[in-house]
């Protein structure tokens, strides 16, 4: 835990984005996580991605459950709306909020405990409903906040700090998401900012549920030898399946340089996600192939990273339910609540 707050002093040459804000304007309060926690690094990647996407902080809703990971929304975008829910219940809060106001950018931050144990059901339904949100699953293989018990993502054979081995098979959020019909599935590593930032940007731009499962070492309880979610192990066994680059719509014209053998996927708003297969013939728009490849690498003890699957034109909750476009707060009261006369008339149809 750091007690000295980050001072207000700024680099005099700080760049501003289209809103005239600097990257530091996207920060939150000083983190109280353990020094070196992977979650902090993800927070910094989130700050960078929002800054670069020129998103106004007050147009963002950040939601989380319980856990060290779930504490992190405090550490970015101080000006955004926030909701810290019950353990594992963030997806339903996010679903409700999104249903009421689809015009905000939604970012949910959760942990492997929060999403894969107590909150597993909620997590599945949010994917199934294709809620338009970026879902960051900060995955460290343990319950960090409650002092390092194995979580449901711990690999078979991984060792706890005191030496005992985990025997239960893990739940892999990425393969589960693929089978549940998630429309955007990515995996990354907190220690690989270059890969993570474009994935966050693509996930935020994607209309529908975007899962980014991020290996995020718990320095205090799960960064020792024998752990499969340590910094060293992840660096050794990480396997980049595709290199991803996110090209916002407005920059499209300027990026006509050589992309090698890259493939472009156009998103709802016209921006582009460009990817280059590192593994031969890998196509992140083919769900079955993606699943098979993931399983193959898993069997080899490797962690597939990058943009694993994307269905760029998926239909999100609002489209599926055919709800109003405007946020409910902006719908005039008379329309939102037309009165008992209209209700009576409606009911008369079913009499």
């Amino acid at each position, binding site marked *: 835990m*750091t007690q000295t707050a980050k001072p207000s*002093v700024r680099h005099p040459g700080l760049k501003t984005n289209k809103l005239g804000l600097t990257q530091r304007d996207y920060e939150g309060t000083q983190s109280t996580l353990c020094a070196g926690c992977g979650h902090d690094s993800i927070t*910094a990647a989130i700050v960078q991605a929002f800054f670069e996407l020129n998103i106004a902080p007050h147009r963002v809703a950040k939601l989380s459950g319980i856990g060290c990971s779930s504490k992190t929304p405090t550490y970015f975008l101080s000006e955004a709306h926030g909701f810290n829910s019950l353990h594992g219940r963030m997806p339903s809060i996010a679903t409700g909020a999104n249903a009421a106001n689809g015009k905000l950018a939604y970012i949910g931050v959760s942990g492997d405990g929060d999403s894969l144990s107590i909150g597993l059901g909620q997590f599945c339904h949010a994917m199934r409903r294709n809620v338009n949100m970026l879902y960051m699953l900060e995955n460290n293989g343990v319950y960090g906040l409650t002092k390092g018990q194995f979580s449901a993502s711990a690999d078979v054979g991984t060792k706890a700090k005191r030496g005992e081995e985990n025997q239960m098979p893990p739940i892999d959020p990425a393969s589960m998401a693929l089978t549940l019909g998630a429309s955007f599935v990515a995996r990354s590593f907190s220690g690989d900012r270059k890969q993570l930032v474009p994935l966050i940007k693509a996930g935020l731009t994607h209309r529908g549920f975007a899962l980014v499962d991020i290996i995020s070492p718990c*320095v205090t309880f799960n960064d020792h030898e024998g752990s499969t979610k340590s910094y060293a192990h992840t660096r050794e066994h990480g396997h980049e399946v595709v290199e991803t680059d996110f090209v916002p719509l407005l920059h499209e014209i300027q990026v006509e340089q050589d992309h090698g053998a890259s493939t472009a996927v156009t998103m709802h708003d016209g921006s582009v996600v460009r990817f280059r297969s590192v593994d031969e013939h890998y196509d992140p728009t083919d769900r079955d192939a993606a699943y098979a490849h993931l399983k193959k690498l898993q069997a080899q003890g490797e962690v597939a990273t990058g943009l694993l699957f994307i269905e760029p034109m998926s239909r999100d909750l609002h489209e599926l339910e055919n709800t109003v476009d405007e946020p409910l707060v902006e719908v005039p009261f008379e329309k939102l609540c037309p009165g008992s006369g209209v209700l009576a008339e409606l009911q008369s149809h079913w009499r």
Partner: protein
Amino acid sequence: MQPTDVSNPDYYHKVVDCQWGCPAHTPVPEYIRLIGQGRFTESYMLNRESNVFPGVLGRTCDRPCEPVCRRVRVEGEPVAICRLKRVTSDLKGDVTDLLPKIPEEKNGKRVALIGAGPASLTVANDLMPLGYECVLFERMDRPGGLMRTNIPSFRLPGGVLDEEINMILDMGVEVHYSHPIDSLGKLLDEDGFDAVFIGTGAPKGKELRIPGRDEGGANIHIGIDWLESVHFEHTDSIGERVLIIGVGNTAMDCCRTSKRIGGKDVRVVARKSRPYFKASAWELDDAEEELVQIVENHSPSRFIIEDGRLVGMEFDVVEWAPDESGRLVSTKLDSTVIPCDDVILAIGQDNAFPWIERDIGIEFNEWEMPIVDRTTFQTTRDGVFIGGDAAWGPENIIWAVEHGHQAAISIHAFCEQESLTDRLPYGMNLVSQKMGLHSWSYGSAYDESRRSQMSHVDLVERFKALEVEVELGFDAEQTAVEVARCLNCDIQTDFTANLCIECDACIDVCPVYCLTMTENRPEDELRLNLTAPAENIDQDLYVSADLPQTARVMVKDEDLCVHCGLCAERCPTAAWDMQKFDLLIPYAGKPTWTKTPETELTTSS
């Protein structure tokens, strides 16, 4: 880039911008912290070790440390380093027992010091504790050189000067006042000195040979001679309308002195425009505060004499522009006359050595300046040394002091028959400042306060007498603010590559984006590929050895680090640590790395 070699003291020394910029390498942040702890006496003594005259310099120093202060780059205004030095002198206790001890038994060597300015006095200060007999010859009847006769007492009270000069003379220096040396040959032949140091300054004010100079002579004065004559009370008045020609620091003292002895309409006339003025910005401010008018782009063409008396001066009004070679050249636009009663010429000083024979082995160059070795300060005659303004022309007090230190090292080596050129290198100590999980031994928090303004005696009061000191010094509150503004640049961020687990914590927490982990590259490419581009090439990049997990390197741009310690506080493995850097400066007979200034102070107080 090659990994940075932090074992070379120069690397960390350069990070301490003020100390690096100070000719005498005064450990500025350390003395500022001592002030913060209320340890004024220790702070004064720490200053004295390197700059010998903290009370004098705390009022008059040219402050090369301030423009280079990191705070300028971070927020625009330097820490008031110089005026904090004055605080140590104002608030110190009795230092008698802390001064260097002088051995009863002498080492049998006699050294002659010619001129009692800061250069010679520093040589005496360094040699007396080693058992030397120092014999000082001064042409005037009092010591101090230009500090005494030219720097006006409203900037530097005589009492402050006396106190610090006496600390040296009371070591047992044999002083001969009113004793000009008029033949160096004679001194060398007859008096049997083991070594001679020449610290006679640059005593000749420059002339302005234009029409009317001789006819108007009675009212045309040479700046440094005129200031001297005011000091000795040979001059106690001047006409109401005064023109000062030249816009260096001497001009500033001339115009302000004129204001105090009768000048009403006092103008400083410069050939060039403001950006090219030699005077320090703060001296210009002080003069303008006293309602002195500064006239730019006026080049003197003649003195106007009527009835044998000076009545004005004619100037070419000029404009400056660079020629093909980039040199500034002037074009005359007009000419104009400014009426006046007196003119003071303050256009520079020359050296003059009529008293050094040209056949005694001391070679002179084409400009009639003795040839002096830049490292040893020795002339072409063994055993004869020169320093201060006498060596290479007018500089300032702090350079004279540093020359004195270096000459003393040479004189000691010469008398011990050791090599003058094998000079001891600087040394360093690095000590971790970690006190606990989240606490450092220094105030690591960044303070947002702006620079404190020095308070001045009001205009009416200050003109009542010449010796009313204008600056009041800092009060407790101003001192506290300035202490807090110091960025503790000597508390270094020290990195151990093989401890790093590459978690990014330090990089993300750094408020000024100093840090990056990246693939190693040549410096020019690296500079552009950092968290924030490192555009100030005067500031170094630190590059680590390869990191254990990815073989990338940790790069730190030293430019804007505020030494907040957050990188070290956030690092889970203590790969970063905050370590205090002590520069160990060699002095005559004293390689300090066997004894650091701090331990010396704590044991003697």
